[in-house]
């Protein structure tokens, strides 16, 4: 029987930077996991994965090299599910990404999927995880899970809307400037073997929401402000002279699907970098909250976001850049990323928001987690989501000192919030 040709697609606008910017010891990956009530059966998980990948040709893909651009190619068969390592998000070598740009791991009762960021963003990844877990539960327990709340029908092929690059449909007449002041850089003693420490703080989402509402802000603004207070304290200790201090800014990815109509399962996020400048004086928590709240109010509008997208899309469509051979393009993109990419923020706080599952699935899924990989030159990152009344804050770091995590969680404790902490510390 003649095999059908494998589907291939161009990388979306946001994804183009990731393969160019990979390094020997770093690649841009993130992880989503679901903890079930019973230990995972790897054979059933493999079977569920075999079925699930056919619905996701853009996520179940591998990265290949063209003459001028990288491109995504559908994988002919699912990768083997693997037992987990001592730390999540172990480096994904480029040879692996060329074969399959994601991996499915299991440990005890947990199923985890680690994605190379060029495939999809957190929201697309969550749809993949939900659908995989739904298929697993269906095969293991014979559940009939409706195709709802992000669970897709595995018997149907992917729609064109799911595969589109929505950035190209986001139009604006003007371009937004990318110029920003560089932010304070967190530092620490690098783990020599590349070990990544994940520290998870578990909070009651209702408690946090009540407190955020009492201050008149959203949960993301509240958590970003707590993070900034922690970094402000760290900077005060590291750089006592206020005149020498740098702005404390947090990069917050924005799900553009909430601003523009899109069904895409590929990358469709942009970011904003709210922050405070300690040179202006001492900030109280309330002042930080108000500053972040208003900055996000101004920046987070469809018009502003469309202008930012336009800047990136126009850059990609420059003829000079298009005609540049890939190896030169990689060098150029890496240089630009090194010069400006991570300097504008201290770290990333990515909040996937409240994740819901179909009612039939809920009793079987105890917990969900979102872990963001560290950046190339910044040691910390924070991924958050809430599920079933709990807020899971996953800090990751490639340095030894847990200073940021300590300052963050003890600040929450001082506000009167109950925090449960667990980690993979050695």
């Amino acid at each position: 029987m003649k095999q059908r040709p494998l589907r291939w697609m161009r990388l979306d606008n946001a994804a183009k930077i990731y393969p160019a910017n990979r390094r020997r010891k770093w690649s841009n990956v993130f992880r989503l996991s679901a903890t079930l009530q019973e230990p995972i059966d790897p054979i059933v998980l493999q079977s569920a994965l075999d079925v699930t990948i056919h619905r996701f040709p853009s996520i179940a893909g591998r990265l290949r090299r063209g003459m001028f651009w990288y491109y995504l190619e559908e994988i002919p068969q699912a990768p083997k599910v693997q037992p987990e390592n001592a730390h999540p998000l172990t480096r994904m070598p480029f040879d692996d990404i060329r074969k399959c740009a994601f991996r499915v791991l299991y440990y005890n009762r947990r199923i985890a999927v680690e994605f190379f960021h060029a495939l999809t963003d957190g929201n697309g990844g969550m749809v993949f995880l939900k659908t995989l877990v739904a298929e697993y539960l269906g095969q293991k327990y014979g559940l009939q899970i409706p195709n709802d709340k992000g669970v897709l029908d595995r018997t149907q092929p992917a729609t064109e809307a799911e595969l589109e690059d929505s950035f190209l449909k986001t139009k604006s007449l003007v371009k937004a400037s990318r110029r920003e002041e560089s932010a304070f850089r967190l530092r620490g003693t690098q783990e020599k073997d590349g070990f990544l420490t994940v520290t998870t703080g578990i909070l009651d989402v209702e408690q946090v929401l009540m407190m955020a509402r009492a201050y008149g802000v959203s949960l993301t603004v509240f958590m970003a402000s707590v993070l900034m207070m922690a970094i402000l304290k760290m900077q005060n200790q590291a750089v006592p002279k206020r005149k020498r201090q740098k702005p404390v800014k947090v990069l917050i990815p924005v799900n553009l699907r909430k601003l523009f109509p899109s069904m895409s399962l590929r990358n469709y996020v942009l970011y904003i970098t709210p922050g405070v400048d300690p040179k202006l004086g001492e900030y109280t928590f309330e002042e930080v909250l108000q500053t972040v709240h208003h900055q996000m109010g101004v920046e987070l509008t469809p018009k502003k976001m469309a202008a930012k997208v336009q800047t990136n899309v126009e850059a990609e469509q420059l003829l000079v850049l298009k005609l540049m051979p890939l190896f030169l393009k990689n060098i150029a993109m890496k240089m630009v990323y090194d010069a400006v990419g991570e300097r504008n923020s201290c770290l990333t706080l990515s909040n996937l928001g409240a994740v819901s599952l179909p009612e039939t699935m809920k009793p079987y899924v105890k917990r969900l987690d979102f872990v963001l990989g560290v950046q190339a030159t910044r040691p910390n990152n924070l991924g958050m989501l809430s599920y079933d009344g709990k807020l899971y804050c996953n800090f990751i770091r490639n340095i030894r000192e847990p200073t940021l995590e300590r300052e963050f969680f003890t600040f929450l404790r001082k506000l009167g919030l109950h925090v449960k902490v667990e980690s993979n510390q050695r």
Partner: protein
Amino acid sequence: MAYCIRCGVELGAGEEMCPLCHTPVRHPDVTIDPTQKPYPAYQKPREEPVNHSGALFLLTMLFVLPLVICCLCDLLIHSHLTWFHYVISSMLLLYVVLVLPMWFRHPNPVVLVCVDFIAVALFLLYMDLLTQGGWFLPFALPVTGGAMAIVVTVVTLEKYVHKGHLFIFGGAIIALGGYTMLIEGLVNLVFHVREHLLWSYFPLAACFFIGMSLIVIAMSPSLRESLHKKFFL
């Protein structure tokens, strides 16, 4: 459930110490359950070999490209190869010295140094043949051979004898003084400059003084200690 007595946070069931401040868990009623750890036990990851082939290919192309351009220019201007011989021999020498070591994962420095000196000798021989100078055998070969003997001895001793660095370098510096005498002697003999040795006594004396100083320092632990005390960084 256990709480950290310093941070006030509740700790996961598998935590032996607080992940935030590393304070050990102290609770009379709580036993740590290692099966509750959120991740598998740590195992040292396998070291992945680094693949430099892409960078090496690029570097090689950087050498090949000017060669092709020079070859074409020489052919177009003179209809046959003239000065291109100098370019190709120099580039080959540079490639052997700079790029060749990168082709090997764990190159042996003794072999590399030998290869470098042989490449230098071949380069000089080629120059001699091109210019019909006749100076290779009486002058360039012994000078290159002398330098090779000193450098290879130092590198071999440093690689295989992991102590006595001061003795090795002291001896090498004295040998360097002797080597300057060899150079002057050969210059006088081959190019008929002078009947006797003149300037090489000065570097010989300086090298002898420095080399012997290093050997004396190597022989006297108390002197080493006092020098270390004076000059530590």
